């Protein structure tokens, strides 16, 4: 075994709660293990304990024993363990601390006191594998999200650890970046490196994992081959199940298909293709219900151009959004999604063309006036928290806009489960709770338009379920919603319309099924049809002989 946890319990300093609670677990050499569980279940602490950061760096109360390649982490400091086990952290920005990509790759090797020739050869290997060869002189902070993630991985790979742990590596990646990272991980596995992946987005990696371990309240509550674990009763552990499995569960089927081919095979074997098909066709209109033609427009934008640092980030974008509509903004990192959403409340103004929000021209009205009608929920809730209590945080905007409605705000506190937290400091909350505070804060002024920037990134299934409820309710109340996301499964389930951006232009605008059916557009924007869509496509086509 390469990693062994024996009755490990751990509490962070100043906290009575146990992040790990009697954890027992073993990982064998060459295995590919996927670790899943809801937020706060102890996954990240498990990663830290696997390389000795817990307890050496974080201190706190540690009992039990962790062995990494036979070394007891209590007796070996981190700088001895990092030769055997490497960890790629959640936030790539906070693990790149050198001036250039090249310096980043060599840092760990220099720590080990390696000869320059050995450093050169390992650097060449890792940069080739992660396709960073052409970026060696670039400062890491200027790289794209996908490149940063590859660099964070490569900087660990140069150390050739026998055990590689990755903590939510797909969170900030677009579909192309995700695919590229999966390719690298498969190569790692084929070279005999033991992989431990912590991930919420199970559908991205489940096919590549040998074993799935489910964490709950600091314990490993289920483990085994992924299919076996997913077939069991795991509904209480907040796992974000792959969409086809969720679909099968909805239809009362207990198979665990990881892709469309397997789903079709399972349906054929059980002779359920026809009944499934007819039931699915009844369900499809529910998934893509569009607002009526008579709905009033909330946003109207014509020929929007925006240039930043000499690059045309938006090029002639046309946009129309109606009351009660939910649209998804999709595209690669850097395609212009964030720039476009910043236009929706006037933070950025069109340099050519125009945009109106509820009749207000964003070029002629200040942000403070437009923001009264637009609630923006940012990906990182920490960007806005500064008040001493949750109550004051939520009431900041209504008080600034002089639109405080106590009844509405109380309703929001109830709806977002904040009633018991109102007098607590927002900084003391979990990330999921902070996200709920930022939702409530954005909705507190009763905006006509709500914009959600990567709402599902790094969130577990229970939050996704809550989010589904919020979105449905907001639409029923006539609020228009814009989702900027890489999560196509979520976008397909909730958005009535997809707007696909590529190089600052809208290359597709239509219902999700229509956009996904256009292979040329999907390729151009670096997107992949969802598995659910692939299954529906197969079922719809005549004959249904081949997937």
């Amino acid at each position, binding site marked *: 075994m390469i990693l062994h946890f024996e009755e490990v319990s751990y509490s962070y300093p100043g906290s009575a709660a146990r992040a790990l609670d009697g954890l027992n677990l073993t990982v064998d050499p060459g295995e590919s293990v996927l670790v899943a569980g809801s937020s706060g279940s102890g996954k990240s602490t498990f990663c830290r304990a696997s*390389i000795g950061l817990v307890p050496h760096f974080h201190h706190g109360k540690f009992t039990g024993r962790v062995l990494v390649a036979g070394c007891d982490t209590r007796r070996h400091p981190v700088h001895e363990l990092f030769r055997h086990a490497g960890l790629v952290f959640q936030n790539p920005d906070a693990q790149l601390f050198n001036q250039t990509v090249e310096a980043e790759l060599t840092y760990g090797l220099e*720590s*080990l006191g390696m000869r320059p020739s050995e450093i050169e050869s390992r650097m060449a290997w890792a940069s080739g594998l992660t396709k960073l060869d052409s970026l060696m002189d670039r400062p890491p902070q200027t790289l794209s999200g996908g490149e940063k993630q590859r660099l964070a991985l490569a900087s660990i790979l140069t150390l050739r650890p026998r055990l590689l742990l990755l903590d939510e590596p797909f969170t900030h990646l677009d579909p192309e970046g995700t695919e590229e990272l999966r390719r690298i991980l498969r190569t790692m596995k084929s070279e005999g490196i033991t992989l431990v992946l912590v991930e919420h987005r199970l559908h991205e990696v489940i096919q590549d994992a040998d074993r799935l371990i489910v964490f709950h309240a600091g314990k490993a509550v289920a483990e085994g081959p992924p299919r076996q674990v997913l077939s069991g009763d795991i509904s209480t552990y907040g796992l974000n199940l792959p969409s086809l499995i969720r679909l099968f569960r909805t239809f009362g089927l207990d198979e665990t298909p990881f892709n469309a081919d397997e789903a079709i095979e399972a349906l054929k074997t059980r002779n359920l293709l026809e009944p499934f098909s007819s039931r699915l066709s009844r369900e499809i209109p529910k998934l893509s219900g569009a607002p009526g033609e008579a709905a009033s427009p909330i946003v109207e934008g014509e020929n929007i151009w925006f240039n930043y640092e000499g690059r045309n980030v938006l090029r002639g974008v046309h946009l129309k959004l109606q009351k009660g509509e939910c649209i998804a903004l999709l595209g690669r990192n850097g395609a212009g999604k964030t720039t476009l959403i*910043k236009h929706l409340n006037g*933070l950025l103004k069109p340099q050519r063309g125009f945009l109106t929000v509820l009749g207000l021209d964003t070029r002629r009205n200040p942000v403070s006036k437009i*923001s009264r009608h637009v609630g*923006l929920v940012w990906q990182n809730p920490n960007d806005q*928290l500064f008040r001493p209590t949750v109550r004051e945080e939520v009431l900041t905007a209504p008080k*600034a806009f002089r639109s405080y409605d106590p009844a509405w705000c109380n309703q929001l506190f109830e709806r977002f489960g904040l009633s018991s937290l109102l007098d607590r400091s927002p900084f003391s909350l979990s990330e999921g709770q902070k996200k709920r505070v930022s939702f409530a804060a954005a909705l507190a002024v009763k905006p006509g338009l709500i914009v959600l920037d990567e709402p599902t990134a790094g969130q577990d299934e229970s939050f996704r379920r809550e989010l589904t409820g919020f979105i449905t309710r907001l639409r029923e109340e006539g609020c228009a919603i814009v989702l900027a996301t890489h999560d196509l499964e979520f976008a397909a389930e909730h958005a009535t319309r997809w707007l696909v951006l590529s190089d600052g232009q809208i290359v597709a605008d239509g219902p999700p099924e229509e956009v996904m059916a256009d292979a040329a557009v999907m390729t151009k924007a670096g997107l992949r049809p969802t598995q659910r869509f692939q299954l529906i496509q197969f079922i719809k086509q005549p004959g249904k002989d081949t997937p």
Partner: protein
Amino acid sequence: MKSSTFDPRSKLIAALVGTLFLVMFNHWVPLAAFLGALAVMVLLLHLSRSWIHFLKNLGFAVFAFFTIVSLASDLLTGIVAGLRLLAIGTVFFLFFRTTPPERLSNALLKTGLPYPFTFVLSTSMQFVPVLIRRARNIRDAQRARGIPMEGGPRTLLHLPALVGPLLIQAFTFADELAEAMEARGFGIPGRRFRFEPRFRWVDWTVVGISLAVLTAGLAIKFFLP
């Protein structure tokens, strides 16, 4: 980054001697001559575009310095003060543009400075843009909630909305960074660098010329009438 063939230590000595020379003289002619020599170096190193960009940033400080000294003293003293600031700025522009920070920290390490000190010295500037980017995000998030942060005196009233989240994020970021550095062997004894700095004859030549210039300057300053 233009990487030169000199050891960062010899360049650092030359830059410090140049600064002393510039501080020593209070007449515009030697300062202008020194600045002219620096401008030639800028041209020879093909750094003119980035120098002009640098001057755009330094320009306001030079102008402010010139104005204050001119008003407090006289025009000629103002010109000397402005020229001095411009020349010292250019000396360190040339130094940093031709010295990758890692090589500087490696070289300083060789002089006996502790590794954590040299590392922090070389990396701290790197995170300034990261924090500026985060400050912009926070400002946008607060403006989107109706908190006026467009500039002007009202912004000062709402400074906690910017500074609070920024400080919290900076502390969290520092913690995460320290953790990542620890996981890659920061501070481990026996660190060996890919580019070990070596003081060669060209470096001794630079040091020799620098000391000669300093001696000549001191002689002119104190012994010539």
